[in-house]
């Protein structure tokens, strides 16, 4: 398992990511407030940690959800990330922001989990999409436009299926770029990869998704 390390990103990279993440998500807590909170936690004030978790819970879970595609797994992963943060706080030097640390940890944990899932699928020939809804349930959906919802859900399933065919790293890079809007430079820094490698992974992911979804649109039409 890849252990998230706070020190694995250079200060320059960390600063770049921090600035970008802060701007993108308009964090309510600035660096000074975060430092005060960290000092409180280090002095044994557990309520400080609770504030920290509450502050980041939604964003961390959404990221995990987008990476893994399943809410239950995302919640478990978010919990694990916060527990690791709690363990890491005494040694946390403050070179990077907490949000950056959490982003990196969640992404790496998600990649690990995706790898384990793929291995499990190969070993046990398990169904790929256990969470797929029952078509009968979909058809009996009482909402106003079940036909449109059905199409949307089918498209979502197809996307999930196409994403599942990507390698864990490609999937993570695509999700971080396409859905989270992180620049490739930041993704490279988060994952400790070269920018060229990230570009290459993104291209392969996009090519694969385009092919899968083009087939789907042809089937639909």
């Amino acid at each position, binding site marked *: 398992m890849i252990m998230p390390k706070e020190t694995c990103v250079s200060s320059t990279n960390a600063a770049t990511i921090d600035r970008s993440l802060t701007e993108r998500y308009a964090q309510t807590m600035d660096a000074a407030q975060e430092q005060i909170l960290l000092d409180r936690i280090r002095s044994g004030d557990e309520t400080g940690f609770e504030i920290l*978790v509450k502050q980041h819970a939604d964003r961390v879970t959404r990221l995990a959800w987008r990476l893994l595609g399943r809410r239950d797994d*995302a919640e478990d992963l978010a*919990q694990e990330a916060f527990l690791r943060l709690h363990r890491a706080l005494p040694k946390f030097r403050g070179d990077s922001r907490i949000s950056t640390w959490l982003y990196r940890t969640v992404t790496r944990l998600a990649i690990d989990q995706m790898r384990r899932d793929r291995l499990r699928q190969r070993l046990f020939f398990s169904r790929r999409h256990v969470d797929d809804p029952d078509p009968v349930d979909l058809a009996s959906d009482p909402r106003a436009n079940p036909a449109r919802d059905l199409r949307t859900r089918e498209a979502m399933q197809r996307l999930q299926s196409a994403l599942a065919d990507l390698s864990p790293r490609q999937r993570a890079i695509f999700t971080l770029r396409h859905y989270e809007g992180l*620049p490739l430079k930041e993704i490279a820094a988060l994952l400790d990869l070269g920018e060229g490698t990230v*570009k290459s992974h993104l291209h392969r992911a996009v090519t694969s998704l385009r092919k899968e979804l083009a087939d789907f649109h042809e089937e639909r039409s």
Partner: protein
Amino acid sequence: MTKTTCLNEQDLTLLYYGETPDSVSLLEAHRHIKGCPACQQRQLQLERTMQALPQRPCELDPHYATRLTARVVERIPRRRFALPAVAGGLAAAVVVFSFTFWKPEPLLVTHNAAVHPSAVTENTPSPDIDLLENLDLLRELDTLSELTGV
């Protein structure tokens, strides 16, 4: 200088995401696309496909953060200093308990028995003493009755 050869797929993908292509500068790439209908067409197709990707709504209810926080706090291991504190408390409880329910042995008897074995017979209350005292009383009663002639 304007690049005359068409852009490859990776460069088009990078351009779609606003990133700099590998093989050509951003400015050159845009200039080329402007003058190349084939690349314009490919770029348009890419944009259509990517924009058709469904959004993945990850809706969380307003109380989710509170619930997750509670679960995380529940799973945080107790602090290490708790163990010595609990151990100390237990030791204190044992001491108090011992003093409360401790009944000392009759020290005098034990001590004498240890030092002067003969003292045991002298100081140990004998069950016959009461009987002997009663007999004395009876004798005295007999003597009194003889004297009074009753």
